């Protein structure tokens, strides 16, 4: 245990994902020894991100305005929505340049053991977007692991009455991993060869 402010910093860092108490302590002491200008830049980057970045009112992606860059782009195809778990999956798919539609970010996957059900994700918002009949294809690009698969199964069944073309990213994506780690070529190929989901 350290004195007040130092311990505060360690505690706050320790709450970040993937940072244990030891790493938190190491980072804290790195910051204490660092050039004040460097630390100032970091602290203003943190403040700015919280002030300026929010979530797109349409798709849930990170945005600097009311709507994200993709949703504001008039060249994007309004007939296709690609459903992903996290904003970082949008980044991974954008890199492939294979997809010209828009996204819907769920904010995670259905995980009953963590108590996360459909109501805890942006599922209702998705159904609202699909209500006007403009969308004809829904691509389910949740992670290629069991939770992602179960989430895709749930959504495919939910939208079935709407009669959309529902597809899932195809083979080539190794199962068990996170979508964000797939390389562009593999992910691009998975997009091209997406398979029809029939539940």
């Amino acid at each position, binding site marked *: 245990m350290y004195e007040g402010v130092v311990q505060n910093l360690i505690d706050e860092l320790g709450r970040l*994902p*993937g940072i244990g108490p030891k790493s938190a302590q190491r980072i804290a002491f790195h910051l204490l020894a660092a050039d004040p200008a460097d630390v100032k830049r970091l602290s203003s980057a943190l403040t700015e991100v919280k002030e300026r970045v929010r979530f797109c009112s349409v798709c849930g992606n990170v945005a600097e305005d009311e709507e994200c860059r993709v949703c504001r782009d008039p060249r994007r195809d309004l007939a296709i929505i690609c459903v992903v778990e996290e904003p970082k999956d949008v980044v991974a798919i954008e890199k492939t340049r294979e997809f010209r539609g828009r996204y819907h970010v769920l904010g995670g996957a*259905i995980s*009953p*053991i*963590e*108590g996360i*059900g459909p109501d805890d994700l942006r599922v209702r918002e998705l159904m609202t977007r699909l209500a006007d009949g403009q969308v004809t294809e829904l691509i389910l690009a949740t992670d*290629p*692991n*069991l*939770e992602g*698969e*179960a989430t895709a*199964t*749930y959504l495919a*069944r939910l939208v079935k009455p709407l009669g959309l073309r529902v597809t899932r990213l195809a083979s080539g*994506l*190794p*199962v*068990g*991993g*996170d979508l964000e*780690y*797939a*390389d562009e070529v*593999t992910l691009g190929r998975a997009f091209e060869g997406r398979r029809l989901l029939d*539940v």
Partner: protein
Amino acid sequence: MKLYRDEGIVLRTQKLGEADRIISLLTRRNGRVRAVAKGVRRTKSRFGARLEPFTHVDLQIHIGRSLDVIGQAETIRPYGEALGGDYPRYTAGTAMLETAERLTAVEKEPSLRQFLLLVGGLRTLGDGSHDPRLVLDAFLLRSLAVAGYAPALTECARCGDPGSHRTFAIPSGGLVCANCRPTGVATPAHETIGLMIALLRGDWEVADTSEHRHRQECSGLVAKYLQWHLEHSLRSLRLVERA
């Protein structure tokens, strides 16, 4: 580093750092174990999908200072494969995993019977021959029995008076006779009690022909009974869907 080998069912995975996961398993010989799988979230990981929930794996585990580390994993049976495409089965299976985890509160305390029960339950769930909610309720009842909390269904839970009593009193431990009956307790249908007995014994002929309303009443009682003994409700139970 010291090494041990065991087989187990993956109960839960949690993200750790950039690309690792902590894997919780119920093993045959070592009880519930938590171990790190390094790099498992990368798409090129050598583990592939072998450390996904529900998978029955053969493992080599290195004993670490704080957490053990998984060295090798080979699939024995991927029970999850049949579940990802079937939402009611997936949610029922998850409740089984969470129950197994909660009933093996102490890490590395061998629990062979709970392990065998889980393997059997997942196999039955995966082969699709019974209503998933029945498979789940059978598993929950038998897990409670293994943990020493079998509900009294053929005698009074308090005085032991044999017979088919009408009142189900959760705090008393099952059915109670007219003399032992506390106030404000449930009186389920005869058929519901019959279903509970069938599920506890594995009598699928009786269970499969039960009526929907008795299945629902049974699930409700089992859930309350489980919650009483676990002292908290299962997170996944409210998300279980009826097929």
